[in-house]
């Protein structure tokens, strides 16, 4: 039932109403609202009960193993939440003078510094509010750099065909055309094709490494050389940084600009789809173009860098400084882990993925790129099951829900048919991994015995498979306008 359907007209929640002494008579009638907004009218208990019971219809990391590939659904330490929500941080006005901000700014400054260190970059701006906005900032900086060099004929961004959809969408937003570079069957970028595509029109290449295929790009140095020799810049999509954290740094691989999804690698919550943070790091030559604000430290005093300090900045991307509360959570996480803890992240994320891949291969599942090391994730392809049993990746995904597991990423990357992209993360125990492997084996055997049963899944969720065609054709996007 919708919250609107619990409404009793006239019911008020007095505890949440401030005292108003008199009628408003100074706002002209033609600017006033004529009828009250049709919002729900409930008691506090009704609201609490409704949203508590709704929450119970969700899978989440706190309740289920959630091996969603490319999303890094690791444990979100509770301390990060409670310490970012200390009253002093919550009540700080974003424009409060530096006098009332030194505590907060010291956290932001140290976060910038730690991110520089673990990625090998020279500067970091924390302002982008999601990975996609980080990408935008990164590509906008590449453009600003070329423009500053009067190098205005570079109109094209190269993107491997395995890339996230945000990469080409971002390049378009920055006024570039996109050229896709094919990927070889072994998961590496097709270097020959890349070399043929590079030229004076190339502004840069956007690369995820390890790639979305779950393997490390072995020719990264040659790729970097090829792009740089043509005068282009190299962009690192940090979606898979968790795989290599503490083991190898994007800056050392030759990247000029990177974004880091703090909600992945640095364990800030995904929140049902945000808020995230797409902090961006730059090499020395791109530093002047960083988006603002950035925190600087001068004689033990922290201050904001402004347009006066950074006249070549690409500007501001948010009203204030991005998702500050998310940044505080990432800061707490990094302090809890420290240097040694961060080195373990990449190691154990990789151990867990390679263990699952080996076990599933042993039990007869087909691995998309079988002869490579997995990074922190790997791909199972169910094309044989789809062909022989008529059971697809979607069917496996839905049946997994019944067995108490969130499904891996399905049908991405687009290059691999009937794929499951599985990312266990370092915080899962061996028992959890084994349980998931057993669940896949159970579904395999169910598929062989009664494929129709698997195709009817899920059976134990609040709803069965939903009619998405109807949702798109008979648009019902608001209860208010339905009922009126």
């Amino acid at each position, binding site marked *: 039932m919708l919250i609107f359907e619990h409404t009793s007209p006239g019911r008020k929640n007095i505890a949440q109403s401030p005292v108003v002494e008199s009628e408003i008579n100074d706002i002209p009638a033609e600017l006033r609202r004529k009828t009250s907004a049709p919002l729900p009218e409930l008691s506090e208990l009704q609201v609490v009960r409704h949203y508590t019971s709704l929450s119970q219809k969700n899978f989440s990391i706190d309740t289920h193993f959630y091996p969603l590939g490319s999303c890094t659904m690791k444990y979100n330490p509770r301390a990060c939440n409670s310490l970012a929500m200390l009253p002093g941080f919550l009540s700080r006005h974003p424009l409060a003078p530096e006098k009332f901000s030194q505590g907060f700014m010291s956290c932001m400054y140290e976060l910038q510094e730690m991110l520089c260190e673990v990625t090998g970059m020279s500067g970091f701006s924390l302002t982008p509010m999601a990975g996609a906005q980080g990408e935008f900032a990164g590509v906008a900086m590449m453009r600003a750099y070329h423009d500053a060099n009067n190098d205005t004929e570079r109109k094209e961004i190269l993107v491997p065909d395995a890339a996230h959809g945000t990469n080409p*969408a971002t390049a378009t937003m920055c006024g570039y055309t996109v050229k896709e570079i094919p990927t070889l069957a072994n998961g590496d970028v097709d270097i020959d094709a890349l070399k043929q595509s590079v030229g004076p029109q190339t502004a840069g290449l956007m690369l995820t490494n390890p790639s979305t295929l779950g393997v490390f790009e072995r020719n990264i140095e040659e790729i970097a050389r090829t792009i740089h020799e043509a005068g282009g810049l190299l962009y690192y999509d940090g979606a898979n940084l968790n795989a290599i954290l503490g083991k*190898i740094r994007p800056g050392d691989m030759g990247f000029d600009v990177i974004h880091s999804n703090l909600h992945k690698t640095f364990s800030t919550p995904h929140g049902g789809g945000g808020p995230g943070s797409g902090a961006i790091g730059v090499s020395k030559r791109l530093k002047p173009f960083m988006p603002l604000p950035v925190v600087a430290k001068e004689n033990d005093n922290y201050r904001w860098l402004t347009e006066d300090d950074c006249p070549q900045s690409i500007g501001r991307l948010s009203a204030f400084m991005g998702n500050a509360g998310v940044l505080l959570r990432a800061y707490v996480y990094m302090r809890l882990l420290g240097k*040694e803890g961060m080195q373990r992240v990449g190691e154990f994320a990789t151990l867990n993925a390679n263990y699952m891949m080996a076990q599933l291969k042993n039990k007869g599942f087909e691995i998309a790129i079988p002869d490579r090391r997995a990074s922190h994730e790997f791909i199972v392809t169910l094309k044989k099951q789809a062909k022989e049993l008529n059971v697809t990746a979607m069917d496996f995904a839905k049946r997994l829900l019944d067995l108490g597991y969130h499904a891996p990423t399905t049908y991405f990357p687009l290059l691999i048919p009937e794929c499951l992209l599985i990312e266990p993360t370092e915080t899962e125990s061996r028992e959890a991994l084994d349980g998931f492997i057993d669940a896949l084996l159970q579904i395999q055997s169910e598929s062989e015995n009664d494929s129709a049963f698997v195709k009817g899944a899920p059976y134990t969720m609040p709803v069965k498979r939903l009619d998405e065609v109807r949702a798109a054709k008979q648009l019902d996007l608001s209860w208010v306008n339905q009922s009126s």
Partner: protein
Amino acid sequence: MPFIPHTEDEIRDMLSVIGADSIDQLFDEIPAHLRAQSIDGVPDGMNEMEVSRLMNARAKQDGQPICFMGAGAYEHHIPAAVWQITTRGEYYTAYTPYQAEASQGTLQLIYEFQSMMTALTAMDVSNASLYDGASALSEAVLMAVRGNRKSKSRRILLPTNVNPVYGSASRSIVQHQNIELVDVAIDETTGQTSMDALKAYEGEDITAVVISQPTFFGTLEQVDAITDWAHANGAMVIAVVNPMSLALLKPPGEWGEKGADIACGDGQPLGAPMSSGGPYYGFMCCQKAHVRQMPGRIVGRTVDQDGKEGFVLTLQAREQHIRRSKATSNICTNQGLVVTASTIYMSLLGPSGLEKVAAACHQNTNKLIAKLSAIDGVDVLFDGAVFHEVVLKLNKPVAEVLAKLADKNILGGYDLSKDYPQLGNALLVCVTEMRTDEEIDDYAAELKKILSANER
């Protein structure tokens, strides 16, 4: 190691299944000379107690001045239930609801959020949110360029009484797409958009006009007149509104003859703490005709195989993971958790609670205006009613006055002299329902002392 559960025995067993001698061997595809760079600049780890000690000290260090500052972020009371429920793990640690059957909690909540936003704005549809108010305006500009098929100019009129940082962020975001944001002057006595300045564009090809209600100065726009003017001239109307004010003010869907085409703004006043600037969320509503041009996630109500009601992400063909370089936006996520808080906030307050909060803000602001305008050296800069912010003209430089108020633990407002040097010593002050009569009296008393002191 923190949060890694593996025992030595398990590591050994797992490596033997893989057929590797060591964890390090799993990285043997990475060129050796690139590996194992030091990260010595990262400090050693601390346990939770130690980090807790550090963070408490830093949070305390920033004091908690009495806040009379708004300028886009507003201090409101947030019921205890809001964030207690929002930070339940089932909301806090879920992801974008790709597996709809296992995400009905988040999906239904977003549908309810969309419904509440359409209730508040009187628009047809809402999306699931964008990053913040500034990014919402930039996306609204891009949407208007796509949506206004009759206009070819890609010119947007942006009155200077729109939050200036929304303007600068929008310029950063749309600048590469050959879109021009044109400043429109304000009327110096009212702070409203100058109708004369607008009329200078009559007969020209204008893609859209932005209207801020209330304005950045707290003053109220003649929304009907501007909306009708824009529509008569073939331009779409983008409303930038404070959602809290909509409990009192005419919603954008009812502006003029036809209503605004797009309404957006920052949802922070509805249940998000000021929190140094985020996370907040941008909201965006539009008329039904434009829904396929809307960026971001949208949730629709549908049925399952048994005909039972359920919720899914819909109209995904607009989005980057399907359309790639031809998507309506590169936006991938929304600000789900803050939307969760906001939905619970609006439910707890209900229509009458929201009206009371908005009215209390307005009343407190008028109280402060009455006290301050009696002080020598303070003038209210613009004529006409305000919502909960007001611009004061002082007889001393604002920065100096604010520094002295800060010494008294008062956050006295926002200095307009950098963004609007032409206004002179202008200070933007905000009073919400949080301020007591005593705090308002204190502010007036301290300001009076500061302005009357003769120190030249």
